[in-house]
């Protein structure tokens, strides 16, 4: 069994990460009723109870004796969120050597996160990453969780990404990036996002795109489905999407539901690596199958069931409906229109009691409505994991590499240009040591060329592409 290290950077990264650990523990508790340290657990937890392999299960939690430590590194330049985690029920899962905090924050400034803190804490970060890696028997993947809009997540997060590439060039880097809404309250978020994207494009193997706005929409829809009344009254307390139980202490926070959705994404993407299945998908197969060109590694995730995650009384949908849902806009974690763009490749990661023949039937059914690039008409990767998410019979995570991300990037470019044309707020960045204006022009050039690459592929869509002339053999 291989292991993965989760690196959570910044406020958002740590909040999402915290939800992930909570849900992961709960999922393992559900599957592994005796609370023994098993192969599946070993992919994200290490056992510190060396005397026996038994962690006990007396009060209902897998980790009731605190024997499992998350294989994670938590980085934030403020103390708030990390302290909250340490005071909450999840404190048992981490030990202090995994944490790195400062007190003053990055002030929503990419340059402060990336340059100032990046240089100051470089050694410490590398040290913690190495320690985490050393605990792994066979390290396969780093999961980095961060947001794009602020200072720490975007700035220091992408610095950590470069460090990962330097230190562990052979280990796969899968990044979960949460993009800010258009009406973000951080005025410099377009700068931060574009500067961060430059690094993502250069150093990541895969980026899972998540937009804040989509999460807000999904959560709102869940609320509407529960008849607009207080969600807590109707949505079951323990439902995977809303519950804050076991995570942050105290009452539910407004972001918890949103963060849970992202945590579910991570839970599903790793399920095939953690549990058995008739068609396993290793984490290193994700990039191999979904990334045809090194820079075009931005993936659109969609999750089903999503609304029923809340366990509100939505009738269970048929299996085939689940596959259709995965290709509807309501279930995507970014706002985009893949059906009217071009698929480069698509992975279907199925969990639960689903047969190969079900997957093949649904692919055949959906294929005609989905435009695929001419050279990858059969660009499907499938995996079957036999363990479904808690409380469900089956689930599906679709990861699409689709040119539909282009409008999102163009919109970001527009917001960047609006500020940059007037050199607004630029001085905040330029007075940071090590930061130069050329970084801005480089970053925007990188984004431009990325958009251009997607555009080129889009352009092939309308045309009927002839097969490439084959090599001819002299006879």
């Amino acid at each position, binding site marked *: 069994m291989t292991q993965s290290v989760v690196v959570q950077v910044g406020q958002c990264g740590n909040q999402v990460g915290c939800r992930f650990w909570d849900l992961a523990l709960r999922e393992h508790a559900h599957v592994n009723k005796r609370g023994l340290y098993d192969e599946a657990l070993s992919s994200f937890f290490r056992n510190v109870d060396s005397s026996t392999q038994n962690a006990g299960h007396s009060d209902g939690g897998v980790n009731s004796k605190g024997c499992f430590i998350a294989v994670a590194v938590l980085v934030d330049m403020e103390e708030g969120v990390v302290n909250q985690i340490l005071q909450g029920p999840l404190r048992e899962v981490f030990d202090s050597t995994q944490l790195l905090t400062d007190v003053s924050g990055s002030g929503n400034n990419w340059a402060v996160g990336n340059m100032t803190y990046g240089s100051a804490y470089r050694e410490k970060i590398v040290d913690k990453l190495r320690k985490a890696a050393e605990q792994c028997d066979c390290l396969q993947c780093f999961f980095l969780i961060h947001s794009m809009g602020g200072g720490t997540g975007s700035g220091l997060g992408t610095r950590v990404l470069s460090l990962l590439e330097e230190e562990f060039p052979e280990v796969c880097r899968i990044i979960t990036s949460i993009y800010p809404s258009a009406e973000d309250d951080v005025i410099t978020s377009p700068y931060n996002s574009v500067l961060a994207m430059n690094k993502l494009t250069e150093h990541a193997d895969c980026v899972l795109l998540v937009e804040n706005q989509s999460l807000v929409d999904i959560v709102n829809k869940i609320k509407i489905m529960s008849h607009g009344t207080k969600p807590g009254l109707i949505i079951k307390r323990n439902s995977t999407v809303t519950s804050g139980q076991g995570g942050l202490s105290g009452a539910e926070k407004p972001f918890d539901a949103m963060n849970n959705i992202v945590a579910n994404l991570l839970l599903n993407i790793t399920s095939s690596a953690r549990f058995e299945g008739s068609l396993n998908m*290793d984490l*290193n197969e994700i990039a191999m*199958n979904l990334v045809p060109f*090194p820079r075009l590694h931005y993936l659109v995730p969609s999750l089903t069931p999503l609304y029923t995650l809340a366990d509100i009384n939505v009738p269970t949908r048929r299996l085939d409906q689940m596959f259709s849902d995965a290709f509807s806009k309501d279930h995507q974690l970014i706002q985009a229109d893949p059906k009217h763009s071009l698929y*480069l490749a698509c992975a279907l990661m199925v969990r639960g009691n689903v047969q190969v023949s079900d997957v093949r039937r649904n692919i055949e059914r959906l294929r005609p409505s989905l435009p695929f*690039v001419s050279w990858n008409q059969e660009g499907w990767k499938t995996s079957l994991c036999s363990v479904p998410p808690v409380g469900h019979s089956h689930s599906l995570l679709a990861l699409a590499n689709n040119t539909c991300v282009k409008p999102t990037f163009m919109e970001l470019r527009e917001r960047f240009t609006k500020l940059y044309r007037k050199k607004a707020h630029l001085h905040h960045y330029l007075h940071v040591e090590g930061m130069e204006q050329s970084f801005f022009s480089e970053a925007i050039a990188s984004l431009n060329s990325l958009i251009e690459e997607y555009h080129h592929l889009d352009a092939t869509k309308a045309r009927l592409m002839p097969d490439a002339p084959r*090599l001819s053999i002299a*006879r």
Partner: protein
Amino acid sequence: MSVVTVQLGQCGNQVGQELFDIICSDAQEGQRKTYSVASCERFFHQTAHGDLVARALLIDMEPKVINRSMSMAAKSGRWSYGESSHFSQKQGSGNNWANGYCVHGPRHRDAVEELVRREVERCDRLAGLIAMMSVAGGTGSGVGTYVTQCLRDIYPSSFILNHLTWPYGTGEVIVQNYNSVLTLAHLYQLSDAILVHENDTVHRICSQLLNIKHISFSDVNRVIAHQLGSILQPALTADSHGAYSRNPLGELVSALACHPEYKLLSMCTIPQMASSSIAYSTFSWPGLLKHLRQMLISNTKMEEGIDWQVRPPAESGRSRSLAGGSFNTSLANLLILRGKDVYSAETGGIDDPALYTSWLSSKEAFSLWKSPVPFNKYEKSATLVSNSQALLRPLDDMVGKAWNMFASRAYIHQYIKFGISEEDFLDSFTSLEQVISSYSQLC
């Protein structure tokens, strides 16, 4: 003489386990001492306690499948794998042929070679080696190719047969056509013969002939194993003078792979039906052979939907191309008949010269093996292994799709990362285009 089997990757290890299971249960069925002894000597060695241990190695880059195959074998109670005849790592090859061939293969060369040597030394005489793998993923295809190369280096004069499972046309792996092209092009230089099963064909056999509703991978593998077993079990051959042949791989290769440009073997077995129907069916040799012959010339790999209109072309019209005509020209065929009254069976017109190329007489091109012992519960069964144009179309599709992708240079960076360059791709494409061209000009 004995055969050592090397099972590589998820597919190879699953199919191999089914194969040994069928061979063992078939050999132990009923009272036929000589057959049983010959089969066991070929595929198993015995421990001091008389237990059968497969002459096989299990190699994979991740442990899950090997563990499962070993425990399934042990659970059968009839045979098992050798306790230390397996090699696995923790992390798979990630669907990347280059990772398997350039990284995992060389890294574990010594360990794997040591296992092979040990197994070969257990044989009184080595008839040859079989390497079983799929071509779609990373380990079977990449590590499999590398290991085949090592086998060729250590045993330059032994027969090496590769059994390949070709993926579904719409696949489980997006880069399967690249992996397949690289595997086939390399194996063509190393292997004596390449025996191919297509998942799509076998899937159809499962659904249409065996009437299986929810087809799982083990159903598919069992069909493959049945067909393979019907070739590999002991039989009386032209050279064996009334005793069971001692060198199955050598005779197979010399019967079918008479020219280094033509190494692709396809096969079909009839009858195949749900086990509940077998008891209610009767077969006659002329009937079976009539079907088999038409399956051969119309290139139908299962006994349903056979096109009875296809006829061998008249003497004058012997020029065909890839696009033209649905008649399937053979270079060589091996017919294996097993079961009741087998000595009275004729060749069913499969030795008709009109079926073969003009440059090889049908006497050289056609071979017949027989065994009076019924195989795997079928009273009579006939298997045809064929070096013909049957695989031309799927090979051409595979190369065409891979070439289209290559024209956009999609996914190439993933291979370059592990040391396979665009040049290497081009070499592989060139050699397979050569194979396609040779087979399409067969007449």
